[in-house]
């Protein structure tokens, strides 16, 4: 009896420690958060990652450049095409190849479709994280249309593997233009429904407005890029500042907010879907004719040196850093993945909020776990 009393006394000083993950509905993958609680309030969150670390950077050191591309699909599987494009751009920049206009436009179109489907999945899963289960199905329903477009042209639904150094693997499918237009028409119609069901919902506002605010200074210091950073006012859109592919010939707005809370991180993504549709509409009717790929040498050897290429994936800035020693295999490949950088801010954001807010904040940062683990 006495011992028990002692236990209780010592227990009082302990924090209430809860594991969220690795098998948890709202970590979107295998990630473990060790959460210290005081009542319902979060004192500290410690992410434990590495459950699906595959050593992609190490694997890249034994693969040729065209072979690396298919590995990048597996990092941020929701921006698979953009990841592919990043490696291709780095290789092309190193070899100083001139890329045909058609390839540039195709890549831009595909990137924007990728961004839309990624944000749709974000919308879907964010709704589900907050308990609105129906959002998930509406989001997936519309995402399927984009995936159909992908499958028709590339043969893959999510893991497209469509890029190769010098261009794309196959030409666009003849139906591509028609399907994209159908999708845009449909999507413009359902986006107001998205707003009705989630964005303007009073409960949703209560759950997200003012939750996990991230000021601009901290966003920059923590290296938060992508829609999460732009919600804080960090103008970090690589498409705007270092245009690649065909982004220099389209007009679009960089979605910027200043509040930086969960709601605006969410809103930034929803608005980006609209911007992406604008970009697609500008390009879809004037895809230039021409070859869909340049003939490259069968064995691609990068000249000795270091190559860094930034692209804007759906989650932020992806940096591909290749150190070449002149061989056909890279000497070192580093992927500066957006989610890995965004993860660092999680603990800072959730301190002092409730456990339900932890889910809201975690969801609003839109993590894809394989992108963190690589």
């Amino acid at each position, binding site marked *: 009896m006495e011992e028990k009393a002692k236990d209780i006394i010592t227990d009082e000083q302990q924090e209430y420690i809860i594991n969220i993950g690795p098998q948890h509905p709202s970590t979107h993958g295998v990630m473990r958060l060790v959460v210290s609680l005081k009542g319902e309030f979060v004192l500290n969150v410690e992410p434990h990652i590495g459950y699906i670390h595959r050593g992609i950077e190490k694997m890249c050191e034994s693969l040729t450049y065209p072979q690396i591309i298919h590995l990048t699909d597996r990092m941020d599987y929701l921006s698979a095409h953009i990841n592919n494009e990043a490696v291709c751009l780095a290789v092309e920049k190193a070899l100083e190849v001139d890329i045909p206009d058609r390839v540039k436009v195709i890549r831009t179109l595909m990137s924007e479709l990728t961004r839309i489907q990624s944000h749709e999945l974000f919308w879907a899963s964010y709704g589900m994280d907050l308990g609105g289960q129906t959002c998930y199905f509406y989001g997936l329903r519309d995402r399927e249309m984009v995936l159909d477009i992908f499958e028709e042209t590339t043969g893959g639904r999510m893991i497209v593997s469509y890029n190769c150094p010098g261009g794309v693997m196959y030409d666009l499918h003849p139906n591509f233009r028609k399907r994209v237009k159908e999708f845009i028409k449909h999507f413009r119609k359902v986006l107001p429904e998205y707003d009705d069901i989630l964005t303007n919902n009073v409960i949703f506002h209560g759950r997200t407005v003012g939750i996990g605010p991230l000021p601009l200074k901290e966003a920059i*210091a923590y290296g938060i890029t992508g829609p999460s950073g732009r919600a804080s006012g960090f103008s970090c859109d690589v498409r705007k500042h270092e245009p690649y592919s065909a982004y220099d010939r389209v007009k679009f707005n960089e979605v910027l907010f200043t509040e930086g809370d969960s709601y605006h991180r969410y809103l930034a993504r929803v608005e980006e879907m609209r911007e992406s549709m604008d970009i697609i509409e500008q390009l879809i009717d004037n895809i230039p004719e021409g070859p869909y790929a340049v003939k490259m040498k069968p064995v691609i050897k990068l000249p000795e040196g270091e190559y860094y290429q930034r692209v804007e994936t759906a989650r932020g800035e992806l940096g591909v*850093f290749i150190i070449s020693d002149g061989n056909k295999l890279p000497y070192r490949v580093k992927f500066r993945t957006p989610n890995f950088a965004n993860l660092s801010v999680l603990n800072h954001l959730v301190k002092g909020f409730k456990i339900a807010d932890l889910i809201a904040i975690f969801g609003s940062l839109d993590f894809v776990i394989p992108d963190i683990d690589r």
Partner: protein
Amino acid sequence: MDKIPLAEFIKSLDSDLEIKEGKQFTEVTVPPSKLHSLASQLRENDETLFDFLDCITGVDYGHDLGVIYHLYSTKFRHTVVLRTRTADREHPQFDSVSDIWEAANLHEREAFDLLGIKFASHPDLRRLFLNSSWGFPLRKDYVDNDIITW
């Protein structure tokens, strides 16, 4: 700020530095002892204002271990690459820049995890992905003992 003045400006901070114009960025090679002070100068100085740490890459050069920093300025939109390396493979150690950029925290932990590079005065230097008994897989002399063959 253009590229040439950036290189010159960094030269003016410390004339011993080895600065070269790369294909893409201005590249600065720093001895490990000067790394932290140079980084904080680049961060604070109004002329450079590298407030965004893009990427930290640990590299195994065969006999040396090195770290490459990509710094970016959100105001001037320019990038500088800092390089530093050490020949000590047993206890490679650099100064942590996580007090200058919070973003460095995870990147440095990753470099420690995969290459065994230590960062002095890092607040929380633990293995990130792998458990503590694992080797350092991104080193070139790493031997994997449990390769599964099909």
